[in-house]
C-alpha cells in the first residue's frame, strides 16, 4: 500500500479512518501526516480570537502548539503502553493497536479542522473571551468523543481477538487524558487573553493543572 499522501486522497482517507475498511487501511504515515496537517487548522482558528496589532501571532503559536501538544502526550505515554502491551502478551497486535489509536487521533484532527470555520464564524459574530474559551473547549470535547468512537470501532475487533485489549485501552485512555490535560495546561494560551502580550508560553513558571483545580475547589488558590 502506498504511503504517498496528497490532498486528492483526503476523502478516501477520511472514510478509511472513520471505519475499518478491508479494501483501504490507512497507513501510520498517512495518519501522522493527517494529524500534523489538520490540527494546526483548528489552532489557527482558536488563536484568531483577536488579530489586531501583533495579536495575530496567537494564531500562529496555537497552530504550532496543537501538533506539539499531541506529540508530547504521545511521547510521554507510549513507553508505558509498549511495556503493558508486552506484559499482557499483546505485542503481536502492537501495530494494529497503534493504528487504532492513530485513527482515533486522525479522527480528532479531521473533526477539529471541520469545526474550525464554525469557531471563526463565532469569533466574527462577536463572542466575548469567556464564550471563546467555552466554545473552543466544547469543540475539543466533541472532537474527542468522535475520536473515541472511531478508535473503539477498531479496538472492538482487537477485543474480540483477546479480552485483555480492554486493559490496554483503559491504560491508554487514562494516561492520555491525564497527561494530555497537563500538556495543554503547560502549552497555554491557545485562545489568547485580552490585555496580555502575545507569547508562545505564559511568562509564569510551569504549574500543575490538577493542583490548581484542587486549590480552586478548596479555596486555597492565591
Amino acid at each position, binding site marked *: 500500500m502506498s504511503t504517498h499522501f496528497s490532498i486528492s486522497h483526503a476523502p478516501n482517507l477520511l472514510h478509511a479512518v472513520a471505519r475499518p475498511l478491508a479494501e483501504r487501511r490507512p497507513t501510520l504515515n498517512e495518519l501522522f501526516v493527517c494529524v500534523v496537517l489538520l490540527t494546526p487548522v483548528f489552532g489557527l482558528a482558536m488563536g484568531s480570537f483577536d488579530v489586531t496589532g501583533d495579536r495575530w501571532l496567537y494564531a500562529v503559536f496555537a497552530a504550532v502548539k496543537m501538533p506539539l501538544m499531541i506529540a508530547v502526550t504521545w511521547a510521554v505515554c507510549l513507553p508505558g503502553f509498549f511495556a503493558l502491551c508486552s506484559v499482557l502478551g499483546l505485542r503481536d497486535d502492537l501495530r494494529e493497536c497503534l493504528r487504532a489509536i492513530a485513527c482515533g487521533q486522525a479522527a480528532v484532527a479531521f473533526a477539529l479542522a471541520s469545526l474550525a470555520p464554525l469557531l471563526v464564524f463565532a469569533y466574527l459574530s462577536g463572542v466575548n473571551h469567556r464564550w471563546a474559551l467555552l466554545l473552543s473547549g466544547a469543540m475539543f470535547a466533541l472532537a474527542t468523543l468522535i475520536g473515541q468512537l472511531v478508535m473503539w470501532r477498531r479496538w472492538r475487533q482487537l477485543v474480540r481477538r483477546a479480552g485483555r485489549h480492554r486493559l490496554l485501552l483503559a491504560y491508554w485512555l487514562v494516561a492520555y487524558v491525564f497527561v494530555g490535560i497537563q500538556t495543554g495546561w503547560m502549552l497555554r494560551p491557545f485562545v489568547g487573553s485580552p490585555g496580555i502580550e502575545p507569547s508562545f508560553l505564559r511568562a509564569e513558571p510551569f504549574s500543575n493543572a490538577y*493542583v490548581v483545580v484542587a486549590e480552586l475547589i478548596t479555596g486555597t488558590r492565591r
Partner: protein
Amino acid sequence: MTTAHPPGRGAVAALDRLLRGQLTSAFQVRTGETLPLKVFVPWAIALGASYGFFMGWYALTGGKDDALRHVVAVMVKLPLLFLGTLLVTFPSLYVFNAMLGSRLGFRATLRLLVATIVVNLAIAASLGPILGFFTLSTSSYGFMVLLNVALLGVAGLVSIGFLIKTLAALQFQSPEPDEMPPLMSVGDEHPRREGTGLWLFVVWIFTYGIVGAQMGWILRPFIGAPGVPFELFRLRDGSFLQGVYNAVQHML
C-alpha cells in the same frame, strides 16, 4: 515449543521475552533455567535505578542543595527497596510453600519472584516519562507523592497479574518429575491440578506490599520534601499510611 535458553541474544532479548511471557511457561518456571538471576537481578537494579532517576528530578527542579547526590541516592535506594523487601519476605514464603506441598524448588521460587520484580520495575520505568513530565511542571510535593504512589501502584498491580497468571499455569501443569516430558507448554492438553499454594502467594503479595511500603518509609527520602536538606535516611517515625495521609492534607 519452548526452549530452556532464549534464542534472542543478550540481556535485552531476555527482558523482552520475559515481558512477553515467553520465559514463564509451567515447565520453564519449574526448571528455572530461563530466568537466570545473573541476568535478571542486574535488570532489577537497572530498571529500579531508571525509575529512581525520574523520581529524583523533583529535587533537581526544586533547586535543592545536593540535588545530584539526592538523585544518585534515590537511584540506589529504589532497587534496594524492592530487592530488600524480597530478602525479608522470601524465606517465610519458601518455607510455608514447601510445607504446604509445593514442588517448586528454592531456586525456581526465587527466580520466579525476581522475574516478577523485574516486570514490576520495567512497568514502573516505562511510566517514568510520565513522572518526569509532571515533575517539570509541579511544585506541589503532595501531588508528587500521590503520583508516585499511583504509578508504583499500577506497576505493582501489573506484576501481581503476571505472578498470578504464571502460578495459575503452574497449577494446571504439574506432572510428577518422572513423568515430565522434555518440553511442555501452557497450551498442552489434559492439565492436572496441584496444590502449589496459589493462595499462599496471594498472602505473600499482601505481605510483600505491607513490608515494601514500610521498607520504603524506612529508606525515605525518595522524592525529597522542599526545604529539607539532603539526608541519606530520615529519622524513623510514623508509617507509610500516615505519610500518604499527610501528603493528601499537604496537597489540599
